[in-house]
Protein backbone atom coordinates (compact mmCIF):
# COMPACT_ATOMS: atom_id res chain seq x y z
CA UNK A 1 0.00 0.00 0.00
CA UNK A 2 1.48 3.34 -1.00
CA UNK A 3 -0.11 6.62 -0.31
CA UNK A 4 0.51 10.29 -0.62
CA UNK A 5 -0.38 12.49 2.27
CA UNK A 6 -1.55 15.91 1.14
CA UNK A 7 -1.74 17.32 -2.34
CA UNK A 8 1.52 16.02 -3.78
CA UNK A 9 4.94 17.54 -4.04
CA UNK A 10 4.84 21.12 -2.77
CA UNK A 11 6.96 24.01 -4.04
CA UNK A 12 5.79 27.08 -2.20
CA UNK A 13 2.33 27.65 -3.58
CA UNK A 14 2.78 25.22 -6.48
CA UNK A 15 1.95 21.56 -6.21
CA UNK A 16 2.17 18.41 -8.22
CA UNK A 17 -0.91 16.40 -7.30
CA UNK A 18 -0.73 12.69 -6.66
CA UNK A 19 -2.67 12.16 -9.88
CA UNK A 20 0.49 13.19 -11.75
CA UNK A 21 2.65 10.66 -9.92
CA UNK A 22 2.47 7.13 -11.26
CA UNK A 23 3.69 3.91 -9.79
CA UNK A 24 3.90 0.28 -10.83
CA UNK A 25 5.20 -2.95 -9.42
CA UNK A 26 6.90 -5.37 -11.75
CA UNK A 27 5.74 -5.29 -15.33
CA UNK A 28 2.32 -3.93 -14.60
CA UNK A 29 1.10 -0.72 -16.16
CA UNK A 30 1.78 2.58 -14.46
CA UNK A 31 -1.15 3.86 -12.48
CA UNK A 32 -1.61 7.20 -10.72
CA UNK A 33 -1.84 7.56 -6.97
CA UNK A 34 -5.53 8.27 -6.96
CA UNK A 35 -6.97 5.18 -5.32
CA UNK A 36 -8.85 4.72 -2.09
CA UNK A 37 -7.37 3.50 1.19
CA UNK A 38 -7.19 -0.19 1.90
CA UNK A 39 -8.54 -0.84 5.36
CA UNK A 40 -7.32 1.99 7.52
CA UNK A 41 -4.17 2.56 5.49
CA UNK A 42 -3.91 5.30 2.90
CA UNK A 43 -5.80 8.42 1.99
CA UNK A 44 -8.77 8.81 -0.27
CA UNK A 45 -7.68 9.77 -3.78
CA UNK A 46 -3.99 9.53 -2.94
CA UNK A 47 -3.29 5.83 -2.62
CA UNK A 48 -2.16 3.02 -4.83
CA UNK A 49 -2.41 -0.62 -3.90
CA UNK A 50 0.80 -2.34 -4.93
CA UNK A 51 -0.13 -5.96 -4.29
CA UNK A 52 -2.67 -8.10 -2.53
CA UNK A 53 -1.75 -11.61 -1.50
CA UNK A 54 -3.93 -14.26 0.04
CA UNK A 55 -2.48 -15.90 3.12
CA UNK A 56 -3.05 -19.60 3.65
CA UNK A 57 -1.57 -22.53 5.48
CA UNK A 58 1.53 -22.49 3.29
CA UNK A 59 2.22 -18.81 3.61
CA UNK A 60 1.65 -17.93 7.23
CA UNK A 61 5.30 -17.03 7.34
CA UNK A 62 6.78 -15.37 4.32
CA UNK A 63 8.41 -12.40 2.74
CA UNK A 64 8.62 -10.99 -0.74
CA UNK A 65 10.67 -8.41 -2.53
CA UNK A 66 9.10 -6.09 -5.06
CA UNK A 67 10.36 -3.29 -7.22
CA UNK A 68 8.34 -0.09 -7.25
CA UNK A 69 8.89 2.13 -10.28
CA UNK A 70 7.86 5.76 -10.04
CA UNK A 71 7.38 8.44 -12.63
CA UNK A 72 5.93 11.89 -13.09
CA UNK A 73 3.38 12.27 -15.84
CA UNK A 74 3.13 15.99 -16.51
CA UNK A 75 1.44 15.63 -19.87
CA UNK A 76 -0.87 18.58 -20.35
CA UNK A 77 0.48 20.31 -17.28
CA UNK A 78 2.47 23.50 -16.99
CA UNK A 79 4.77 23.20 -14.03
CA UNK A 80 6.13 26.31 -12.39
CA UNK A 81 9.90 26.46 -12.33
CA UNK A 82 11.38 25.41 -9.03
CA UNK A 83 12.18 22.51 -6.76
CA UNK A 84 9.51 20.05 -5.75
CA UNK A 85 9.72 17.58 -2.91
CA UNK A 86 7.31 15.05 -1.56
CA UNK A 87 6.97 12.06 0.71
CA UNK A 88 5.58 8.76 -0.39
CA UNK A 89 4.53 6.41 2.39
CA UNK A 90 4.54 2.64 2.16
CA UNK A 91 2.63 0.57 4.58
CA UNK A 92 1.53 -3.07 4.66
CA UNK A 93 -1.72 -4.23 6.12
CA UNK A 94 -3.26 -7.61 6.80
CA UNK A 95 -6.97 -8.11 6.91
Amino acid at each position, binding site marked *: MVWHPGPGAPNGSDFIPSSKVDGRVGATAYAPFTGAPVGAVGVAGGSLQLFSQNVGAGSYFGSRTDQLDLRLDLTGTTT*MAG*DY*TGTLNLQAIVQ
Partner: protein
Amino acid sequence: MPIGKYGFGLLALGAISALRAQELSAQAQVISLAASAISTLTVTIQSGGVQTIAGIADNAVTNFPSPVVIQTAWNVKPGQTNTVNLVAYFALPAQAMVGGTTQIPSSRVLGRMTTGLPVAFTAITQNGIGGVGTAGGSLGLFAVNIGGANKNANRTDNLDLQLNLVGFPALAAGAYAGVLNIRAVTQ
Protein backbone atom coordinates in the same frame (compact mmCIF):
# COMPACT_ATOMS: atom_id res chain seq x y z
CA MET B 1 -35.15 -14.92 32.45
CA PRO B 2 -32.72 -17.79 33.23
CA ILE B 3 -29.10 -16.76 33.60
CA GLY B 4 -27.96 -19.69 31.44
CA LYS B 5 -29.63 -18.21 28.42
CA TYR B 6 -27.51 -15.03 28.63
CA GLY B 7 -24.36 -17.06 29.17
CA PHE B 8 -24.87 -19.00 25.94
CA GLY B 9 -25.36 -15.81 24.01
CA LEU B 10 -22.07 -14.28 25.19
CA LEU B 11 -20.12 -17.42 24.37
CA ALA B 12 -21.48 -17.49 20.85
CA LEU B 13 -20.38 -13.89 20.17
CA GLY B 14 -16.92 -14.68 21.49
CA ALA B 15 -16.52 -17.56 19.06
CA ILE B 16 -17.48 -15.40 16.07
CA SER B 17 -14.99 -12.73 17.12
CA ALA B 18 -12.17 -15.27 17.39
CA LEU B 19 -12.78 -16.58 13.86
CA ARG B 20 -12.63 -13.14 12.26
CA ALA B 21 -9.20 -12.10 10.88
CA GLN B 22 -7.56 -9.32 12.83
CA GLU B 23 -6.56 -6.18 10.81
CA LEU B 24 -2.93 -5.46 11.36
CA SER B 25 -0.80 -2.81 9.72
CA ALA B 26 2.97 -2.53 9.57
CA GLN B 27 4.91 0.58 10.38
CA ALA B 28 4.86 3.04 7.49
CA GLN B 29 8.07 3.46 5.52
CA VAL B 30 8.88 6.70 3.77
CA ILE B 31 10.19 7.37 0.28
CA SER B 32 11.44 10.89 -0.31
CA LEU B 33 10.71 12.34 -3.73
CA ALA B 34 12.43 15.33 -5.30
CA ALA B 35 12.21 16.90 -8.74
CA SER B 36 13.25 20.20 -10.26
CA ALA B 37 11.45 22.12 -12.98
CA ILE B 38 14.04 24.21 -14.77
CA SER B 39 13.49 27.84 -15.60
CA THR B 40 12.80 28.70 -19.21
CA LEU B 41 13.17 31.90 -21.20
CA THR B 42 12.47 32.16 -24.92
CA VAL B 43 12.32 34.88 -27.53
CA THR B 44 10.50 34.38 -30.82
CA ILE B 45 10.44 36.76 -33.76
CA GLN B 46 6.91 36.32 -34.98
CA SER B 47 7.23 38.63 -37.97
CA GLY B 48 9.44 41.35 -39.34
CA GLY B 49 12.64 39.36 -39.10
CA VAL B 50 13.81 40.82 -42.41
CA GLN B 51 13.64 44.57 -42.90
CA THR B 52 14.53 46.21 -46.21
CA ILE B 53 14.61 49.84 -47.25
CA ALA B 54 14.55 50.03 -51.00
CA GLY B 55 16.08 53.48 -51.30
CA ILE B 56 17.99 55.23 -48.56
CA ALA B 57 17.72 58.99 -48.49
CA ASP B 58 20.88 60.78 -47.43
CA ASN B 59 20.60 63.32 -44.63
CA ALA B 60 17.13 62.07 -43.77
CA VAL B 61 15.22 59.84 -41.39
CA THR B 62 13.82 56.68 -42.91
CA ASN B 63 11.65 54.16 -41.14
CA PHE B 64 12.09 50.47 -41.72
CA PRO B 65 8.90 49.20 -43.33
CA SER B 66 7.24 47.09 -40.64
CA PRO B 67 7.50 46.45 -36.92
CA VAL B 68 9.42 43.49 -35.61
CA VAL B 69 6.91 41.49 -33.63
CA ILE B 70 8.65 39.82 -30.70
CA GLN B 71 7.18 37.32 -28.27
CA THR B 72 9.02 36.77 -25.01
CA ALA B 73 7.99 33.90 -22.72
CA TRP B 74 9.37 32.87 -19.37
CA ASN B 75 8.78 30.42 -16.55
CA VAL B 76 11.13 31.38 -13.74
CA LYS B 77 11.55 31.18 -9.99
CA PRO B 78 10.76 34.50 -8.28
CA GLY B 79 13.31 33.78 -5.57
CA GLN B 80 16.06 33.57 -8.14
CA THR B 81 14.80 36.02 -10.74
CA ASN B 82 14.07 39.67 -10.11
CA THR B 83 13.60 40.89 -13.65
CA VAL B 84 13.26 39.76 -17.24
CA ASN B 85 14.96 42.13 -19.69
CA LEU B 86 14.78 42.22 -23.44
CA VAL B 87 17.78 43.69 -25.22
CA ALA B 88 18.50 44.56 -28.85
CA TYR B 89 22.14 44.88 -29.83
CA PHE B 90 24.64 44.96 -32.63
CA ALA B 91 27.74 42.81 -32.30
CA LEU B 92 29.92 45.62 -33.69
CA PRO B 93 28.40 48.99 -32.85
CA ALA B 94 30.68 50.83 -35.27
CA GLN B 95 29.49 48.60 -38.09
CA ALA B 96 25.80 48.12 -37.48
CA MET B 97 25.21 48.07 -41.22
CA VAL B 98 28.05 47.33 -43.58
CA GLY B 99 28.35 48.55 -47.12
CA GLY B 100 31.11 48.32 -49.68
CA THR B 101 33.31 51.06 -48.29
CA THR B 102 31.15 52.73 -45.66
CA GLN B 103 29.72 51.44 -42.41
CA ILE B 104 26.67 52.79 -40.67
CA PRO B 105 27.20 52.82 -36.89
CA SER B 106 24.56 51.78 -34.38
CA SER B 107 24.15 55.41 -33.38
CA ARG B 108 22.33 55.86 -36.69
CA VAL B 109 19.94 52.98 -36.11
CA LEU B 110 17.09 53.79 -33.76
CA GLY B 111 14.57 51.57 -32.07
CA ARG B 112 11.24 52.16 -30.41
CA MET B 113 9.02 49.90 -28.36
CA THR B 114 5.92 51.76 -27.32
CA THR B 115 4.99 48.97 -24.90
CA GLY B 116 8.47 48.92 -23.41
CA LEU B 117 11.23 51.27 -22.32
CA PRO B 118 12.17 53.28 -25.43
CA VAL B 119 8.72 54.64 -26.20
CA ALA B 120 10.33 57.19 -28.55
CA PHE B 121 12.92 56.32 -31.18
CA THR B 122 16.24 55.89 -29.38
CA ALA B 123 19.68 55.24 -30.80
CA ILE B 124 21.03 51.76 -30.20
CA THR B 125 23.98 53.06 -28.24
CA GLN B 126 23.37 51.82 -24.73
CA ASN B 127 25.45 49.33 -22.84
CA GLY B 128 24.58 45.68 -22.40
CA ILE B 129 22.32 44.40 -19.64
CA GLY B 130 23.23 41.46 -17.47
CA GLY B 131 25.96 40.27 -19.76
CA VAL B 132 23.80 40.57 -22.87
CA GLY B 133 24.62 43.12 -25.54
CA THR B 134 27.62 45.19 -26.40
CA ALA B 135 28.96 48.39 -24.94
CA GLY B 136 27.60 51.31 -26.94
CA GLY B 137 25.63 49.08 -29.27
CA SER B 138 22.62 47.98 -27.24
CA LEU B 139 19.11 49.11 -26.44
CA GLY B 140 17.06 47.89 -23.49
CA LEU B 141 13.59 47.19 -24.79
CA PHE B 142 11.73 46.25 -21.63
CA ALA B 143 12.31 45.20 -18.05
CA VAL B 144 9.65 43.28 -16.16
CA ASN B 145 9.78 42.76 -12.42
CA ILE B 146 9.05 39.15 -11.53
CA GLY B 147 6.71 38.14 -8.75
CA GLY B 148 4.36 35.32 -7.97
CA ALA B 149 1.69 36.58 -10.33
CA ASN B 150 3.88 36.72 -13.45
CA LYS B 151 6.53 34.07 -12.88
CA ASN B 152 5.05 32.13 -15.77
CA ALA B 153 4.03 34.58 -18.47
CA ASN B 154 4.61 35.89 -21.96
CA ARG B 155 4.25 39.14 -23.79
CA THR B 156 4.29 40.31 -27.39
CA ASP B 157 5.80 43.64 -28.38
CA ASN B 158 6.44 45.57 -31.55
CA LEU B 159 9.90 46.95 -32.20
CA ASP B 160 9.97 49.78 -34.71
CA LEU B 161 13.26 50.55 -36.40
CA GLN B 162 14.50 53.65 -38.06
CA LEU B 163 17.59 54.85 -39.92
CA ASN B 164 18.64 58.38 -39.09
CA LEU B 165 21.21 59.73 -41.51
CA VAL B 166 20.71 63.39 -40.71
CA GLY B 167 24.17 64.95 -40.66
CA PHE B 168 25.76 61.71 -41.74
CA PRO B 169 28.07 61.78 -44.78
CA ALA B 170 26.37 60.82 -48.01
CA LEU B 171 26.43 57.12 -48.50
CA ALA B 172 28.07 55.54 -51.47
CA ALA B 173 25.57 53.81 -53.71
CA GLY B 174 25.22 50.17 -52.86
CA ALA B 175 23.68 47.72 -50.46
CA TYR B 176 24.06 47.96 -46.70
CA ALA B 177 23.25 45.02 -44.47
CA GLY B 178 23.33 44.35 -40.79
CA VAL B 179 22.15 42.01 -38.09
CA LEU B 180 20.32 43.20 -35.00
CA ASN B 181 20.28 40.65 -32.19
CA ILE B 182 17.31 40.33 -29.86
CA ARG B 183 17.89 38.54 -26.60
CA ALA B 184 16.21 38.22 -23.24
CA VAL B 185 18.03 37.87 -19.95
CA THR B 186 16.93 37.37 -16.37
CA GLN B 187 18.61 39.01 -13.42
